[in-house]
């Protein structure tokens, strides 16, 4: 199994004057290719910080992070931007689509910033259209986000996350802004991606969402408290008690 994510003693310390807060206190995780992992934990547990570092949006204070074998923990802002473009697809709770920009153009966005093997506008459009088809939204390609429902918006975001064929998909509370039914549809889509071999790391605080994954990592106070097979939601609740 190829390790997509491998961290060694990852720490993140926020300094506020003399007071220093350790958001992460030495995290070791390994996530292999094809895994669907939920990252859980109460607020303040460091799960957002871990998510940001794993998503190459932030840099650890110390420790190592290898993304698909590549040491990214020492990289600068520019290098991280390139890595995000090449290897990571993001799905956010609040969708984060560009307003007044069609679904198609939103999906094309990562291709615009692609530096190696730059595509012609026609090729970009073709790829973006294919990604929209994959999430079942080809017929809405020319609609702006405000003309789409929440579920449709999230599907546009998923298409955008997929379009550059990343090694890792980071999903941050992907169902958090959706009703249960739509949330289940989105989870269904993520399962489909997982079945096709995508590696997905999903941050969530909802146990029944986490229960749908194959593995859960629970953070408490910036450390990994639990790491194992996801349990059915009711079992997890009992554990928590």
């Amino acid at each position, binding site marked *: 199994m190829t390790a997509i994510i491998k961290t060694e003693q990852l720490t993140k310390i926020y300094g506020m004057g003399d007071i220093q807060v350790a958001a992460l206190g030495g995290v070791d995780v390994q996530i292999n290719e094809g895994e669907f992992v939920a990252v859980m934990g109460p607020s303040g547990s460091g799960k957002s910080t871990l998510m940001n570092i794993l998503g190459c949006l932030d840099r650890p204070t110390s420790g190592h992070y290898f993304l698909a074998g590549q040491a990214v923990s020492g990289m600068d802002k520019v290098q991280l931007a390139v890595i*995000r473009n*090449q290897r990571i697809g*993001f799905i956010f709770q609040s969708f*984060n689509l560009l307003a007044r920009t069609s679904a198609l153009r939103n999906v094309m*966005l990562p291709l615009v*910033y692609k530096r190696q093997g730059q595509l012609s506008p026609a090729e970009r459009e*073709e790829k973006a259209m294919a990604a929209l088809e994959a999430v079942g939204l080809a017929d809405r390609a020319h609609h702006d986000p405000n003309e789409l429902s929440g579920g449709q918006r999230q599907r546009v975001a998923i298409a955008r996350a997929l379009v550059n*064929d990343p090694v890792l998909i980071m999903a941050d509370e992907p169902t958090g802004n959706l009703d249960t039914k739509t949330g289940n549809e989105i989870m269904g889509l993520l399962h489909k991606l997982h079945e096709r071999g995508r590696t997905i790391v999903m941050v969530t605080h909802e146990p029944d969402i986490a229960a749908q994954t194959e593995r859960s990592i629970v953070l408490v106070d910036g450390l990994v408290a639990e790491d194992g097979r996801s349990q059915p939601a009711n079992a997890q609740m009992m554990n928590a008690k």
Partner: protein
Amino acid sequence: MTTAQQTAQAGVLEKAEGGDLETAVATIINPLEISRIAWEGVVRNKVRSLLTMLGVIIGVGAVIIMIAISAGTEATIAEQIEGLGSNLVFIQASFGRGGAGGGGGDQVTLVYDDIAVVESVGGVAGTTVDQTTSQTVKAGDVTLTDVPLMGTTPDFPEVRDVAVADGRFFNENELERSTKVAILGAALAEQLFGAANPIGQSITVGTTKLAVIGVADEKGIVGNTDFDSLLYVPITLVFDKFLPTQFRQFAGDRVRIIYVQVEPEADMELVIQQIQLKLATSKDVTVDELPFTMQTQQDIIDTEGATTEAFRNLLAWVAGVSLLVGGIGIMNIMLVSVTERTREIGIRQSVGATPNDIRLQFLTEALMLSLVGGLIGVALGVGGSFLFGSTSDMRTVIVPSSIALAFGSAAAVGIFFGFFPANKAAQLDPIEALRHE
């Protein structure tokens, strides 16, 4: 996408290490794409963009119009100086100095007899004088009031470069005898006689009947004089008939100005000095006390040149300030725009936009605002110059280099004032930016 492309892409992903990443980092994304993103930013808020551009539009338009006015003024002056005649010296009584100079109560003035003194100087090719007044002129049933009467000498056409189109100018004989003859300016002839031939006709000036013996060729306005509306008569006739009596008593045969034509090969400075010396001697004063100003064409060119240069410098400052204000306007809106679009910046960063990509995007947007503003300003400036030239007395000449200058300054303003907001955008932290509401 073809299978070949897929494998090629997979290959890139597999070996994306070290050097490969460096190449990617060094690669700039397509400038066309950046322009497109920036352009979308401009057109997304059309009204705001237009208002932002307003400063630049006004600045650029002002530069072009002001330079066109200034160039028009210069062209007019250049033509007028050319029209003055060649190698001329103008001798004029300078006001405010004349009275004190004489000492004994007698004012030292420029009089008709001074011509003889001036003509005795070597190097003087010809002289003429003028004394003007205005009179009511009648011809048949046409009556014109306030017609400028130019009393002068037979040398006038040569010295002042006026051609006689029909008939002839008066001669020395007629001058000496104050013969009642007149030469009409081209426009005056038209007004008095229409298409009919004025030569041989008689006109009544004031109460005196004059015979028309010639019509001058068209010359237009030179200096402040409209040559075409003048009525030329022997200066002696003006002294005898047309100066108001109360004025005549103390004015005598005073003249307004003596024009001296200097021989082309003569030394202008030397001739002027000698004229001054002789005039001073004849009037029994020192050269310093002589209350006359001596001006050459070159003096006039220099004076006018200095005036227009000062004028143009002033305009340049005004235009520069308005461009500066325009630039500050752009910076202001770009700063607002960066704050407003923090989320967008975060989204772009999350999908792989580098700080440089973001900087370029906002810089290009500022540049586009100023360039589009510049273009509109150029159109406004050119149109405004035409409008000014055709609807007012002001003459305008559109200077092509002023368009380049104004447009170039607008671009420079865009880059200069766009840089700070663009840099601010580039330095945003992706996490903070994504969290921005």
